[in-house]
């Protein structure tokens, strides 16, 4: 039942990501209307619990969602199976999570 669990996890994370992407795009389009600079944007995001939670949640769901998608590609195109596939996927997921959260910290700052 591994595949069913992964399928459900990928759909569940997609359902979380979709509104977050729309929120991100909407705010971005709205915010740059007046010609905001990067510094001005960071001024508004630094220390914000809302943006920290929003982008933190997005990064966590991306790490799960993208890893499951890449796992399918690794299985089907590169014929990887067993522990090699599992370890590689955990590394990919951990990498996405690490670099994603690092970016969130850069935008929001440490609590």
């Amino acid at each position, binding site marked *: 039942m591994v595949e*069913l669990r*992964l399928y459900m996890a990928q759909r569940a994370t997609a359902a979380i990501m979709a509104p977050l992407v729309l929120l991100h795009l909407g705010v971005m389009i709205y915010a740059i209307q007046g010609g905001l600079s990067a510094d001005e944007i960071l001024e508004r995001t630094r220390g914000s619990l809302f943006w920290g939670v929003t982008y933190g949640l997005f990064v966590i769901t991306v790490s799960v969602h993208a890893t499951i998608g890449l796992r399918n590609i690794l299985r089907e195109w590169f014929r990887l199976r067993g522990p090699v596939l599992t370890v590689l996927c955990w590394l990919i997921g951990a990498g996405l999570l690490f670099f994603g959260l690092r970016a969130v910290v850069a935008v929001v700052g440490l609590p």
Partner: protein
Amino acid sequence: MADSITVSVWRGGAGGGEFQDFQVPQQPSQTILDVITWIQRHLDASLSYRFACRVGMCGSCAMMVNGIPRWTCRTHVNKVMQDRHLTVEPLRNLPVIKDLACDMSEFFEKWRQAEGHFQGSSSRDETVAAISPKSSQRQAANAAIECINCAICYASCDVVAWNRDYLGPAALNRAWSLQNDQRDHAQDERLKVVAGDAGCHQCHSQQGCSTYCPNELNPTASIAGLKRMSAHWFMNKKYRQRHG
């Protein structure tokens, strides 16, 4: 002599092979199966291929024609010929026995694995179940039921090519039909198999099966139905109780 067609026929066996060209006279209303039969009767009696009914019912004559899986008894030469040339190969994704005949064992074995047989719950002493033909379940079963087991969908499926364990569109389409049969009592067991690691969740909805199915069935829709059904099953209480 009538205009001739150049036909490249794959010759060989499990160990490999190559194309052999034949010149075949074109006839009105000629099918691909007619062409192959003409080659075997007039040019090379050693050519192996499989057919039975010749009218699109038995599903035994499917081959790759110009790279596309087709039922050869119902495929007219003039509709698929390109520059007076035809290429005929054994079905993709199945081991070749000889020439155009492939081994269908794994295809039918996967039907068995997917619990593709009806398992009734009533004895002959009970009354016949009353199923409304208008019920949504019966309509879903009907939409998937006219499969002739030709393996064209199996040959067109890239997921089968990538993952040899995948049950494939035909077996899953059959399972969907039985999952909607209110008289069948093996639906929990069947759902566990079709939602398993070789089952419906492997499908990427590329729709090769639905594009090439000669009976215009839609196995992709059947597989999507199984995905929905198994997702509900995954979330329901009984599943959580069973698996902690």
